[in-house]
């Protein structure tokens, strides 16, 4: 079974890489489901300790892809799909959680949440998502770089490979995208 789905995902990935756009439509739900499942498994295992999306994406890759059949570029492509999926997963969850927080108004017992509340001010994922969507319209490549790095946990070289650009370009685009998004989210 596992082999079958692994082979399937690998096949889809390769087909997409060679230009079959529909292959992506079939690929995405599988990646989405796998990421979600992995995240939950990891949470249970660690009793709620922090998990990194990067690790999740890497784990999903190993689970879903027959490594021997995919080259470095293919790997990068998978990661870029996973990163976009991750963005969707996270933003959706965040939205739902925020909505639940405001709406309910029913009994609410506080948990002593010193651990979360004291940390760095949490990034507002929905605002980032909105800003990122705006950026997509202006400069799709910059938006993609941000998605890969922030949601997919890819490093500069991996991003460069996935997008077939130089690492120097990745660095420069990243620097500007950060400024742009920073300003957009501050306003």
């Amino acid at each position, binding site marked *: 079974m596992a082999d079958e789905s692994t082979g399937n995902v690998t096949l889809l990935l390769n087909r997409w890489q060679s230009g079959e756009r529909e292959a992506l439509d079939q690929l995405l739900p599988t990646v989405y489901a796998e990421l979600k499942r992995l995240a939950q498994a990891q949470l249970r295992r660690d009793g709620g300790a922090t998990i990194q999306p990067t690790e999740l994406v890497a784990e999903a890759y190993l689970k879903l892809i027959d490594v021997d059949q995919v080259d470095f570029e293919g790997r990068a492509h998978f990661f870029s799909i996973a990163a976009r999926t991750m963005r969707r997963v996270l933003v959706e969850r965040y939205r739902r959680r925020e909505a639940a927080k405001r709406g309910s108004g029913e009994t609410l017992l506080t948990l*002593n*949440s010193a651990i979360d509340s004291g940390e760095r001010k949490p990034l507002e994922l929905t605002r980032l998502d909105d800003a990122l969507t705006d950026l997509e319209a202006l400069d799709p490549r910059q938006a993609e770089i941000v998605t890969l790095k922030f949601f997919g946990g890819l490093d500069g070289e991996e991003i460069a490979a996935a997008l077939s650009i130089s690492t120097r370009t990745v660095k420069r685009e990243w620097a500007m995208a950060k400024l742009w998004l920073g300003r957009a989210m501050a306003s």
Partner: protein
Amino acid sequence: MDPKRYQQIKRVLMDALEQPQAKRDEWLAQACPDDPELQAEVIQLLAAQTDASFLEHSPTGLDAALSEDEQDAAGQRLGRIRLDRLLARGGMGEVYAATDELLQRPVAVKLMKAALRMSALRRSAFLAEAQVLSGLRHRNICQVYDFFEDQAQDVLVLELIEGQTLRALLQQGGVEQPIEIAMQVAEALAAAHERGIAHRDLKPENVMLTAAGQVKVLDFGLARAEQIPATADPAKPDGDTLGTQIAGTPGYLAPEQARGEPATTASDLWSFGLLLIELLTGKRAFPHSASSEELIARAQRGEASVPGGLPRAETQLLRRLLSADAANRPSAREAREALASIAQRGRRRLRMALVASALLLLTAAGMKYTFDLRQERELALAAQADAEKAQAEAEDLAGFMLGELYTELKKVGKLPLLEPVALKAVDYYGDLRSEAIGGGRGEQALALIRVAEVLDMQGHLKEAISAYQRALEGLQPLAAAKADDPLIQYRLALAERNLGEVLRYAGDYSGSDPHGLRAIELARELTAGLAPGEGPEGEPSAEERWSLLLRAIYLYADSQFRQGRALQALELLDEAKALAIPAVAKIPGLRPHLGDIQYKRCMAYYDSQNPAKVVEACQASFDLDMALAQANPDDAKLQDNRLTAYWMLGRALELGGDLPAALETTRKGTALARLAVERDPGSAETQNGLAVTLVSEGRILRGMGRMAEAQQAFEQVLQITEPLIAAGRDHAIIHNHLIALVMLGRVEEARPYVREVYDSGWRRPEFMQLIDEFDLLPGVERSGKVR
């Protein structure tokens, strides 16, 4: 913006980023000299660089966000506990609504995650505290029922509380009675502290308010169970962690906690200070955006500033609570007492305004009565010391109060200095039998009346009422036995009248009216057969008799008026006016009574919506008030009456249909009210005076169709009434507040106030009309009857 423009910006910006920081501006100036907009855009973007960590870390909300899909444990059993539904989930574990099946009671169950379980040492300390806490039943503390271990998780069984956290309430726009809430929190702390238990993590998230307004403090002592690492250097957010671990929440840590020292009960008082700031101002003492490193560093330095603009008593309390040195902070009980006196001040302020403004005039005019304040204090303190020495001396004390001290202090408006004496005296009289109070010709009872007056003025309404009641108990049998002794009858009438007045002031009209009627009856007997202003030789004097009668009628009429019975009030007031005019001719000291009567007549005609009579009545009242003010430049009350005179005349003119004249008159009143507020900004009464005239102005403007100006006026009203309501409640203030809310279209916010005022028995037609017009109390129509 279009992609093309973005690419232009991108080219310049990316090159700019490669330049050394110091040379960027210079470089930019020559990079795009002919496109200043582009240049500005790039400069702005470069300035957007703030937090170095921005986007460099993976999203932190991930675990919490994803964990929502985790299975919850609802339906499971832990021993005799059945978990019913998940209430909350957070970093530390989960909270369930559950049922204790053995005791058949609802409980809350907190499951602590295995990963966060306590070390053996902390655990034993926590267990010891849980034991003490479970034995501590306090209405303001969330009760701990049980604590046990089940399959590698810690289970805490707690009282189930239905309500909202203060954090939630603060986020929804603040709380209605901050002082009351703070007092209950302080009571919870006091109860725990007196058993040696510190909370260690007091913050708005840990305080709940039930629908009934009861405060419940949660998670006592739990902070011990969790820890957060502190970084040593605030400049290095990712630097080495400090060797020590800190328990608590960064924004609420006391300095000693932030330094890694163990939290004590005094640490809770610091956190309580920060909580109080939030309750009073609606804002966090430290900005929410500050990082935990920054917050901890601030706390380590003992930095917490008391926000400006708070009343003096609050500021003083906050300063003490936020002492960097734990030893200088008050105990929870002391803090509670300080809050209790603040709560009373809200009520007291109104009554004290008169005295306060008299005092102010006194000093401002540099009059000959330059009393040495310190000397007076010593007098009062000495009196207090006397009282403490022995209760046997209390009789002397009463004499002392009746005599010089009371008279002298009243003259200069320093009766509050008698407060401690009065409280002692009440203790004394509390032990005295009624016969003793009613001895002689009621001297003791009269002393008690004086005591009650001081208590009343100081806002101790309950104590004042009970003191008057004691006086009455003593005087009634005495008066019955000596029905022909006018002095005893007079004293009895005084007690009845004053008790009626305090009850009316406290909003208990049905309790007040019988006393008011009895006072009128007694006063009529004391003036029976006498021409107005005349009286026999001896005590009580003619002035005392007529003053008693006029005031008694006035007060009772006012009570009728407030209950919506304007016509009955008018009947009484017309009678009083007929008596007062000839009486004043003989005793000029009675003129202020006539002023009050005329004023109330004007109001009653207004409430009976009689446009034919109202302008005349109000003009008469206005003329008299102006004359009185001019003749008595040093009488603060008479000076203040001018304000209400302008205001009421304005309303009368409005009712009479002359809106331009109404607006002009009302605006004169507003100007005067502003002056009064400038003179005495701390007084609730002057503030409310301004609110009243602004409400009028707003309504007249509205009637003239000048909506924008009207709205401005109502917004100003809210600015005044909001803090006043927070400090204490008086129906007149709430009334102004709710009118402004309704006029600004904020009907939903007004509803609870409308209900409160309506339930107290307030039935002024204006109020009832408002209810009708905006359907503020579904089911109630103008007549005040339930449909």
